[in-house]
Structures are given as C-alpha cells and as structure tokens.
C-alpha cells in the first residue's frame, strides 16, 4: 500500500516536467525531424512529399538537378566544431587555476567572486558584444590605451578577425565553464592531496593521479556546457567577426529566413543535434568512468 502511494506521489511530482518536456521539446523535435525529409515550399513552409536531398546536399548524395552536393556545408560544420573546441580549451585554461584560487578564498570573498562571475547575465548579450566592438575597433579603448602606453606603434587589427570571434566566444562562455569547475574543485578531498604528498608523490604525480581525476567530472561538465552553445553560436561571429566566416548557426538561421528553405534548415539542425548527442554520450561515458575511479 505504502509503496503504491509512494509511486503515485512520484508520478504526480514528475508529471509536470514530463508533460512540459513532451510538449516543448519532443513535439518541436519531431516537427524538425519530419520537416527535414520534406521538400521546401516556394515561399517558406514545406510541401508534404518525401525528399531526401536535404541530407544528400550535405553528405554528397544529390541528384544534381534539384540539389547539388556542396562540400561547403560540411566545411562550415567542421569549422564550427573547431571554434567550439577552441573555446572549450581556452575557457578551461582560464578557469581551472582561477577556480582553485577562488575555492581557497574566505567565505565572504568567495561569495563576492561568484557574484562577479554571474554579473554579466544581468545585461543582454547583444549589448555586451557591442561593447566589445567598441573596445576592439582600431580607434577603440584597447588600441588607444596600448598606443598611449607606447606598447604598440599602430592599432592592432583585431576587430572582424577570427581572433575577435574566439575572444568573444570565450568571454561569453567563461561563466559556464567556471561554475561546474568550481563546484568540482570546491569538493576536492584535500586530505587525499595531503596524503599523496606525505606518501612521497611529486607535485606532478599528485596532480595527475589525485587532483585531476577528482575534478574530471567538473571539467567534462563544463566542457559540454560550453561546447554545445559555442557550436551553434552565430551572434558572436556576426558582430565581432564581421560575418565573414559562416558558422553552422548562421547557416540554419539563413535557411529559415532569407533562403526560405525550412527543410534544409531542419536537416542542418538535425545534423548539429546528432553531433552534439555523440559528444554528450562520449562525455557522459568518460565522466562515469572518472567518477568510478575517484
């Protein structure tokens, strides 16, 4: 009896989230999946006939009449994945040492620091990116300062380059990397670190055998949270990159708007989701393994 009641309560508690996800995640996903194998309507929308060229166009299987295979789409996807990976690595390099430092601060300072990390979320992303545009442009604050200090002779050409895109992405994503890393590092068993040192392990050995395995779930968690939105990001490349390098996010947006090709946009979205899913599965498997070791 008690068990049945428990399961009833559990179902009642889980029902809202299940229904919510069902309606607002699975249904749109289903629509995208179906649209991705339909033919495009002339003025947007879809026509209800099966049409596999949307994927064919991406992977090199096209009839050459209606659709032409172009390696450009795979190139764009690869480039986006590359930018995502680079963003992850740079965020990790920035956040890992800082998280250690913050974890050792006194309570009040620590809370203040965490507040600072969350501070950018109080203003719109677009506004913050325009601020970067003003900072990075040739006559911007960065160049004026460096010129005044005599560190450079001519303004640095950063704005509208891939470097500006990476900088912007890292800037946007740093908090997402920092928080899971901090959580993992804060939970680090310090006694184990001390034990390792006492038992004669070098600093290097202690880091790789004790610290890294214990913080690996945080690293993987942060990496996944940073990687996924970085791959699909199209605002940063538009504003800071001068829209010169197309990202897969831009491509999807363009297919739904100026190209009026919803099915192809859907096929591209499915492709991004597939890639992200693979990354996620690999990451969870690694995290589980890491968790087992610790």
């Amino acid at each position: 009896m008690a068990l049945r009641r428990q399961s009833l309560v559990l179902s009642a508690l889980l029902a809202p989230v299940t229904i919510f996800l069902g309606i607002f995640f699975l249904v749109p996903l289903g629509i995208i999946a179906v649209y991705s194998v339909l033919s495009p309507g002339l003025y947007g929308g879809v026509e209800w006939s099966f049409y596999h060229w949307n994927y064919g166009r991406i992977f090199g299987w096209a009839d050459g009449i209606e659709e032409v295979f172009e390696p450009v789409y795979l190139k764009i996807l690869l480039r986006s994945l590359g930018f995502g990976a680079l963003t992850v690595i740079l965020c990790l390099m920035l956040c890992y040492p800082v998280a250690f430092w913050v974890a050792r601060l006194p309570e009040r300072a620590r809370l203040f620091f965490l507040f600072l990390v969350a501070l950018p979320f109080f203003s719109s992303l677009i506004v913050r990116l325009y601020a970067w545009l003003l900072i990075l442009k040739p006559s911007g604050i960065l160049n004026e300062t460096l010129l005044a200090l005599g560190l450079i002779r001519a303004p640095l050409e950063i704005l509208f380059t891939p470097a500006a895109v990476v900088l912007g992405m890292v800037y946007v994503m740093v908090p997402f990397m920092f928080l899971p890393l901090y959580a993992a590092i804060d939970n680090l068993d310090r006694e184990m670190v001390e034990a390792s040192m006492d038992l004669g392990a070098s600093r290097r050995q202690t880091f790789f055998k004790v610290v890294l395995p214990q913080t690996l779930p945080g690293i993987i968690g942060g990496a996944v949270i940073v990687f996924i939105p970085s791959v699909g990001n199209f605002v940063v490349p538009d504003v800071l990159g001068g829209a010169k390098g197309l990202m897969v996010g831009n491509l999807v947006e363009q297919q739904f708007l100026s190209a009026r090709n919803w099915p192809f946009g859907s096929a591209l979205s499915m492709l991004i989701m597939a890639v992200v899913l693979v990354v996620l599965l690999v990451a969870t498997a690694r995290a589980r393994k890491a968790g087992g070791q610790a």
Partner: protein
Amino acid sequence: MKKAIGLALALALAAGTASAEGKLALYNWGDYINPLILKKFSEETGIEVSLDTYSSNEEMLAKIQAGATGYDLVFPSVHMHDIMMKLGLLEKTDINLSPDFKNIDPATFRSHEDPGAEYCLPYAFGTVGVFYNEDITGPITGWADFFDIPGKTGGKITILDDMREVMAVGMFMTGHSINSTDPDEVQEAADYILSKKPAVSAFTYESPALLLSGDIAAAHFFVGGHVYFTEKPNIKYVIPKEGATLYQEDMCMLKSAPHKEEAKRFMEFYLRPEIAALNVDQQFNGSANVPARDLVADYIKTNPNITLAPETLERVQTFVDLGKALKLYDRAWNTIRTAQ
C-alpha cells in the same frame, strides 16, 4: 543584429486622454516610421497605435505565415508585397479610390501583382549606395573605386550583410540584371564578389558608427544613412555609376487584420502631404507622395541622392521575387561567406 534589438522593441503609443475609440497594430521595419506621425494620428482619431518591428522581409513573412495575428498593417518591400499577394495574405483596401490618392506618384506602383495599388499604398523608397570619407578616399564614383579603396589608401570598407544586395553588386559589375535567374550569371556575379572579398573588412549593418569614428573609410549602405552624417561634410554618398538598387516598401493591410477600419483610416491619413513629409524629414528617403516632396527640409529637397532625378531613377534596379532561383543565390552566398 538590428534584428534582436528591433524585435524586442515594442513601442506602445498611448493616445493620451482621448477616449480610445479603437486600436491599430503596425508591424514595420525598425526605425522606419516617424513616431510623430503615430502621435498625430492618435491625437486626431483617438485610435491607440502599437508598433512592433522586424529587420527583414523574411522575418516578417515567416511570422505571419506561422500564424501571427493581431497585426493590421505591414510594410513589405515590393518583391515581398508580390509574394504576399500570391500567398493571399493581403486585403484589398481600394486605397486607390480615396480622394487624396491623387497625391501618389504612379511611378511608384512597382508591384507586379498589384499594379493599380488596389491593395497597398506605396510608402517610401531610396537607393543603396556607398558612403565614403572623402578625406581618406578622395572622390568615389562607383563600385570599382569602392573596392580599390583598401589597396590604394589602406582605408577599410564594409558591405551589407544581405544576400540580395551583395549579389546585386556582383551583377552590376558583370553586366547582368540583379534579378537574373541564369546559373552562369549568378556564378559570375559570385565570382566577382569572391575576388573582392579580401578587400572587405566586414559584412555588416553597423557601418555608420564605424564611418563616423574613422575606423572605416567607406561603406555599402542605405541612403537613409544620411541622417547620421548631416554634420559631416567630408562623408559623402554616391549612387555608383555601374548601377545601384532601389528599395521600396509598400504599406499593406493583412487579411487577418483585426482593425480593418482603423487601418484604412491610417492609410488615408498617410496620403496627406504634410504627414508623408514628416516621414521623409526623419528617414532621409524618397516619398511616393508628390506634394510632400515640396514640404521637406531643404537639405533633402536639394540633395540629388535623396530626391532622385528622373535620369537617376532610370539607371537603378528594384528586386523582384526570384521564385525557385533563390536557391542559386543562397548557394552562391554560402560560398561567398565561407571563403577565406
């Protein structure tokens, strides 16, 4: 990125104390109507006007197609006006039968599907050309000069982040129509742009501020950009000699409009020369309203780039809907934007 900002901007203009007789919902491009017009309309009629904005024809169409209701008047470009006619999204208004319609220049009936303006009222038009900082670039007469700026002076140039506008530049330079649907011609135009891509700093709409601060030397931009440069005699505008595009938007009533009567009243209100002139004074572009052209500020009246001479109008081209050939342009555009 005007998109994201514009989208969030929902300006509600209350009608003051006047009894709210009715409501009217406009869906227009960002910064594309003088707020004073809405205020005057509300004061006179007691109708409460709300304004939502979009940043591209396709964004507006996608929203209407997806079933967005509640909007009365939209402001599509001519080719989108045609598409919306074909899709049956627009309401016949008989605006051409209104007494003040005689003010409207018949040369602005550019829609193929609505040649007699029985549905929509021609709203505003203007050219897309080049703004340049003459101190850096010297005189510029056309696209060839424009693309030579970086090589000759070290100054930077930007072009619009717009598929049709950029492809049009390629079409002018290869001697084709901006509405060509011939795959070879599209390819030639794309190749021209590709060959010039290394000279281009960015594809962007944010050029006026960069031009003002001296960070770029020239920009492909709409004539309305004049509004930023009225105090800057060294920043000049040219309608390139090889060719330029002429945009035009029309004011159209949606079939799904909830306030048709109020919408028609607004269209008729906009037929008045003094009202149309208010828009020109704020937008720095051309008006379909002939008597209004005499009521605008001198700066605009005497500027041949804003108030276009007939011979200028003869050498500009307006976009038409490409139908299925849009795909050719999309492919070319993806290649252009991906090339390193």
